[in-house]
């Protein structure tokens, strides 16, 4: 293919935005992580070297305990949300794929929550999990249960956010799986039928391996998204009760813009957290790229 200089012109707008809104802020954040920047007077900050990073591993530091507690809370969300956001959409995608009629309508129904903003999602959440008139407690009341104070207890508050995130995210992965399932060669299923394979065998021996790149991709993307969870906690529980749902991004936000105004410290937290995300996801990304 003949190389064309005009190709650079076409990618220039995107590259400009990429540099301006991703690279430049990242580099600026990296610089600020070595300063005592307070988030207000840019230019007045002083160089503090590795202090902000040391604070994250020094047990005597004010930030140590809350930083790792937020990390734990975030990983707890990951353990709850990621498997659910993979297996549940996969289950429904498999069912929808076998529908003869109404596929499009069902697809749209599942995808609809994905177009909501996080504020809209949280608004739905406050209705669903309302202690007196929420949908879930209403269903429980039909079985004689007095209802659960969903947002007042650390365990149920965490569960509420996880369920809400699942409902919000299910559509995106479902669409990917449906596309992947429709691309599987049906000859393999016919051959399996001839061999007398059960549905479970076909699913685990044909379906799963055939869509493994998509599974891997969605796992990585869902993991990254869940590690960055913020809006649902911020709006639904404000990190409560008693900071039990304060995720890492929330804690970074509070550190930068809260009473401490420690934006430099928050920048260091962001860098460390970003490196952890890269460390977790990069090996899997490499594997996906190899298989594609």
């Amino acid at each position, binding site marked *: 293919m003949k190389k064309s200089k005009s190709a650079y012109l076409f990618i220039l707008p995107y590259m400009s935005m990429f540099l301006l809104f991703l690279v430049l802020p990242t580099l600026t954040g990296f610089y600020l992580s070595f300063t*005592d920047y*307070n*988030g*207000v*007077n*840019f230019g007045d900050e002083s160089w503090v070297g590795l202090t902000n990073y040391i604070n994250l591993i020094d047990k005597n530091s*004010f930030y140590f305990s809350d930083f790792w507690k937020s990390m734990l809370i975030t990983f707890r969300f990951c353990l709850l949300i990621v498997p659910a956001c993979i297996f549940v959409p996969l289950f429904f995608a498999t069912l929808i794929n076998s529908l003869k009629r109404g596929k499009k309508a069902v697809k749209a129904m599942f995808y609809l929550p994905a177009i909501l903003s996080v504020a809209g999602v949280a608004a739905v959440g406050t209705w669903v999990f*309302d*202690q*007196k*008139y929420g949908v879930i407690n209403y269903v429980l009341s039909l079985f004689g249960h007095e209802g659960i*104070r969903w*947002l*007042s*207890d*650390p365990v149920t508050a965490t569960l509420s956010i996880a369920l809400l995130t699942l409902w919000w995210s299910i559509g995106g992965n479902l669409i990917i799986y449906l596309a992947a399932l429709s691309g599987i060669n049906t000859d393999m299923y016919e051959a399996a039928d001839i061999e007398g394979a059960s549905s479970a065998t076909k699913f685990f021996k044909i379906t799963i391996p055939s869509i493994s790149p998509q599974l891997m991709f969605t796992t990585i993307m869902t993991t990254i998204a869940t590690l960055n969870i913020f809006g649902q906690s911020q709006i639904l529980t*404000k*990190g*409560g*009760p*008693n*900071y039990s749902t304060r995720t890492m991004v929330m804690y970074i936000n509070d550190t930068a*813009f*809260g*009473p*401490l*105004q*420690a934006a430099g410290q928050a920048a260091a937290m962001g860098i460390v957290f970003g490196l952890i995300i890269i460390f977790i996801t990069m090996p899997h990304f490499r594997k996906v790229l190899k298989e594609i």
Partner: protein
Amino acid sequence: MKKILAFVILFGLVLTGCSSDATTEVTTIDFWNPFSGPDGQVFDGIVQAFNEEYEGIYEVKTQTIADEYYEKITTTSQTGEGPDASIMHVDQVPVFAENDMIVPWTDEDLNAMNISTSDYDENIEQAMYYNNELYDIPFDVHAAGWYVNTDLIPEDQIPTSYEEFRELALAEPLVEDTYNVCMPAGMWVAYDIFLQNDVPVMSEDGSTAEFNTAEGIKAYENYMELVNSDTTQTPGDDCNQMFTLGEVGMTSDGPWMAADFDTGNINYKFIPLSSTFGEGTKFWASSHTFVKYNKDLTPEEEDAINAFVGFAIENSLMWVEANQIPAISKVKDSDEVQNDPLLGELAKDTEDFTFYPLLPTTQALTENIGVCTDSIFLGQTSVEDGLSQCSQLITDQSAIILNEE
């Protein structure tokens, strides 16, 4: 044809370049406010009235920011794109003053507004100053109070003292299948518990939280006795929802909730929170204030800001429509406000309004005291442990804030 088209486009551009803004002498100021609810419409009405009165001279362009109001002010101010003046909650003043983002009002400013600091009650006047500089001019004062369902709690049963409140809270329901009192929680409740039991909250220099004392623990334990009683609701229940449905006789919130309660067709009255959590009469209050930002403003823009603030305060009776009590005494003490069906009782008791102390560490107190005492309220931690952890958190944060200055 092409030449005609080019000429038309060029002519249009020339006309656009000759916009009227370049030739009029109207001074425009950018004013931000956080009134995203029904009160926003009332405030817009005040702005509109000002713009009509000063048409051709000044124009206020107001922007209502619903979320992350102070974060957006902070961010935009760094690039000079922030507001010229804005509404600010009084407890936010120290942060913005410490960072030189807002500037003090001068005597000339006050003269231009036709107001004086002595036009305010003493407790309100004190909240205008930070580090002995006048940074904020109060527009209103607001506080939480008790909403009393008068169908469930007869007039003669409405508590007027601490003992009467405890008696009512611990009594069997006056009406079957209801609770007399829905025990509140949150930032102002914690503050009121300490205020009304003479427990110091913060040291004078703002370095230390001082409520973790035997008196503070005792005060909170007395409060928790009511919370844990079978005669009050289970912690975590939505008190306001229960009040709207006629399931509780009393719930606590600010006058801004009145519109929500009106949907429940409840007959209610709104009374101050005095002597609820202790013998003391003081209770938490806040204020929406006018502040001016550290920008290179022209003398005309300064005049415009002063004119608007003066106008808004002069006409602050309009603000009663938003269920807010005007702060300036001549309006606050007027018959219209004192006899207002919702605000009247509270307006008569403004001498008991107590603002958070204006210290460099105020935010450490306000951001944490409600969250960390909620764990006590919800039974997740004991009073002793909860107050200990809470005071330590606030003290530690205060230490960092003060070290950074």
